[in-house]
């Protein structure tokens, strides 16, 4: 007699996180990889129930993301994802709130919301799909497009300077900052999990290839021939080495970073900077944030920085609890009559 049913925790799979909607990105788009890695990583997230996950987005190719996740989702308006997500999180702090956004959505029209969400340390996970181009509007330059880039709106090359997203997040006091690559699925999964585990605002910049309007923008970092010399994988407490045989290292010279070959007689591995994710000062992470633009240096991927501060939503909840303890639970009848009153007989 099977009168006893074992209460079993059913482990979810990637499929459980896929919605019934057809995915409509261009074939070969980097967004497919991000979606797949999110769906693969989410079953492993400890202590987060599927019904407690909310994906929020703005406008752009990547902002279609929520429709493809079988979780709660809100496809907002251009640039406002971080603000909408802040409202969701404050209203119900138990929720795990994720933002899918692009470089135009987050850094141009939504720049203000981004820096303030970082500053407040709202417990949001923001995935920036950075393809350095406006895709959905068909190929205009973006705030991360490199200077000189030729696009439909810059036929003679763009004259403005791009944002360094990592540096912007640092300057805005984000507590978790990482970068990863759409084509490095293992690393992408690892960064998603690290972001999920972080209590506070987690910002992950994903170099994502737009196959139509900016194809190959990040090829140098993922191509077998070039990636070893151009991509530096940051690992906490490990020396910052790269190159085919990990023969090259990053050395701190005064306030500048430079590349040394540890096999050369003057150098040794002891000269190589050891990565510290948890350095309280943002100065070190700022040096790393500037590497991507320096053609003499490799571009780092991995966790740039993780620090721990009370989150905004916790602060709000704590204050309410404190005031309730001090004043007692609000009583509307009493409160309405508590002002300076007089009686008319």
């Amino acid at each position, binding site marked *: 007699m099977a009168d006893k049913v074992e209460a079993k925790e059913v482990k979810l799979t990637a499929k459980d996180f896929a919605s019934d909607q057809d995915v409509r990105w261009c074939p070969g788009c980097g967004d497919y990889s991000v979606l797949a890695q999110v769906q693969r990583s989410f079953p492993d997230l400890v202590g987060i*129930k599927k019904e407690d996950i909310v994906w929020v987005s703005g406008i752009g190719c990547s902002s279609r993301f929520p429709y493809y996740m079988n979780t709660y989702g809100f496809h907002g*308006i251009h640039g406002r994802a971080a603000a909408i*997500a802040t409202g969701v999180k*404050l209203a*119900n702090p138990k929720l795990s709130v994720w933002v899918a956004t692009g470089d135009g959505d987050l850094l141009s029209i939504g720049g203000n919301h981004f820096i303030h969400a970082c500053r407040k340390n709202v417990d949001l996970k923001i995935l920036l799909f950075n393809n350095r181009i406006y895709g959905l509007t068909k190929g205009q330059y973006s705030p991360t497009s490199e200077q000189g880039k030729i696009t439909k709106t810059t036929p003679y090359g763009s004259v403005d300077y791009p944002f360094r997203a990592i540096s912007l997040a640092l300057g805005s006091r984000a507590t978790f900052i990482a970068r990863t690559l759409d084509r490095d699925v293992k690393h992408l999964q690892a960064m998603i999990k690290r972001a999920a585990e972080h209590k506070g605002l987690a910002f992950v910049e994903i170099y994502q290839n737009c196959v139509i309007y900016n194809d190959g923008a990040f090829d140098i970092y993922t191509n077998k021939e070039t990636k070893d010399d151009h991509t530096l994988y940051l690992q906490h407490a490990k020396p910052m080495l790269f190159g085919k045989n990990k023969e090259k290292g990053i050395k701190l010279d005064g306030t500048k970073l430079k590349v040394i070959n540890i096999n050369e007689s003057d150098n040794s591995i002891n000269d190589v900077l050891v990565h510290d994710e948890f350095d309280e000062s943002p100065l070190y992470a700022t040096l790393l944030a500037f590497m991507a633009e320096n053609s003499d240096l490799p571009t780092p991927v991995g966790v740039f920085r993780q620090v721990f501060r009370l989150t905004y939503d916790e602060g709000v909840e704590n204050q*309410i609890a404190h005031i309730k303890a001090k004043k007692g639970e609000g009583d509307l009848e009493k409160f309405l009559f508590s002002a*300076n009153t007089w009686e*008319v007989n």
Partner: protein
Amino acid sequence: MLKEKEVKNLAEVTVRFAGDSGDGMQLTGSQFSDTTAAVGNDLSTLPDYPAEIRAPSGTIYGVSGFQLHFSSTDIHTPGDRPDVLVAMNPAALKKNLDELKPGGIIIVNTDAFDSKNLKLAKYESNPLEDGSIKGYEVYQVPVASLTSKALEDTSLSQKEISRCKNFFALGLMYWLFNRPLEPTLHWIQVKFRDTPEFIDANTKALNAGYNFGEMTEVFTTRFTVAPAKLPKGIYRSISGNEATALGFLAASVKSGLPLFLGSYPITPASEILQYLSYYKNFGVKTFQAEDEIAGVTAAIGAAFAGNLAITNTSGPGLALKTEGIGLAVMTELPLVIINVQRGGPSTGLPTKTEQADLLQSIYGRHGESPVPVLAAATPSDCFYMAIEASRIALKYMTPVILLTDGYLANGSEPWKIPHVNELPDISVKYWTQKEGFAPYNRDENLSRPWAIPGTPGLEHRIGGLEKANITGNVSYDPDNHHNMVKLRDQKVKGIVKDIPDLEVDGDQEGDLLVLGWGGTYGAITESVIKVREEGYRVSQAHLKYLNPFPKNTGEVLTRFNNILIPEINLGQLSKIIRSEFLTPVIQLNIVRGLPFRTSDIQNKIKEILGGKNNGR
């Protein structure tokens, strides 16, 4: 021996306090109001201050005023023209003299009438000496030096002593109008509890002003205004902004939902954010956002997550929130947007009142984007309309715009405090069952289910793209779009069955109906009462539901030969009434950043009715 002073009984008085923006006139005015309310007069107030915080002292543009109308009968406006002007400096006199009633009382602080201040006020000679204020009853009081004298044994600096002079003036006015000092003395005790020297000084200044009235030969008469006959109950004084904040607090309690306010400071709406941020022991969450857009979109996020979500602003902020409101229309989430209207366009007149955002509220979004629009009629009505706006938003899953204005927001009146059990129950239930759930399945009110994140099995996605009917999936289907446009429109139109009919005060049919909306209620009501006293037959109706209109609106309009619509804009309601009901209307539009003077409305009524004061 002191001469016994004559006491005159008045039915009503309008007093205006005027001085530099740093002179504490708003404080003086609100203290006088609170005390006057506490002795049982009906009252209505109009703070009128410059947008600059501390404009250069002595200048005309730096003058801050506070007008107060109080009476032994029911009143509705802060008064057209003051009977009494308290002028703390020449600029205050210059700016306000034209408004004073002929033969009115002027109390001036003579100490401020030096050559520098006279020059700043652009007086070529001293008006106290050159006969230019002949015809008024002028009381010259050296307020500053009398205050200094009263405080000479305190440890305060000369500057600090100077700042106490408004309490001297207040004390004198308490004597003149026979008001008790106790409420203000108590207020001083509480306000300055950490600085005993200020308690001492302000108390002394207040008493000195009162005693000066008693002792001086200058004043031979004092006045009393008997208590008004108001309905029985417990009363408090309330401003529109505080009533709005309390209304949403009540809506939170009566709906059983946590209240979330997404907001960005803007005059004259910031006080709503300030009040609500105090109500933390009710679990109220106030999010002071980085901008107006974040204010509304965070509120939309909070609504998605199941809170009673609101956002407050004034005209320029409403413009910024426009796209967000469209998102709430598309996602069909409950949200209340409070617009405390001010003078526009652009930065306009930030501290002044206006009614010129009606068309923006009803029509000011791209696409077919229907939003219910409500407007409060009086400061205390803001409380009830906040609850009503919440009820409609929650029941119909829609954003609702609640219009108040600068006059209602800052003006105050006595309010008979309601008991919580007398307030409407607006409780709502989230959708929790898996069976029959589809995000855009509609109930009998065409309202969709509210299934909030955290509910197992109901994971779904919504957003700003057009929704397929029922499933809520993204749809570009032409016929579906046409259908959804109509469904959203019908849903909002259908609210008509759920709101009260438009009531007509006075004759139910006749020659003239004065139709108003929002914050002009007091001015129109008082005007109508006054002309009726002269024998004119005139009826009044007031709209608090602007979209949709009450269902009998068109029928009411057919019962009158003439419809007069006074508005503090260039005819926005008039335009809508004409287009909706194909009926001619007569406009009265005065856009001065101030409430209507009842005389303007009375004159217009008489002009329309000609000599037809049939009662005589």
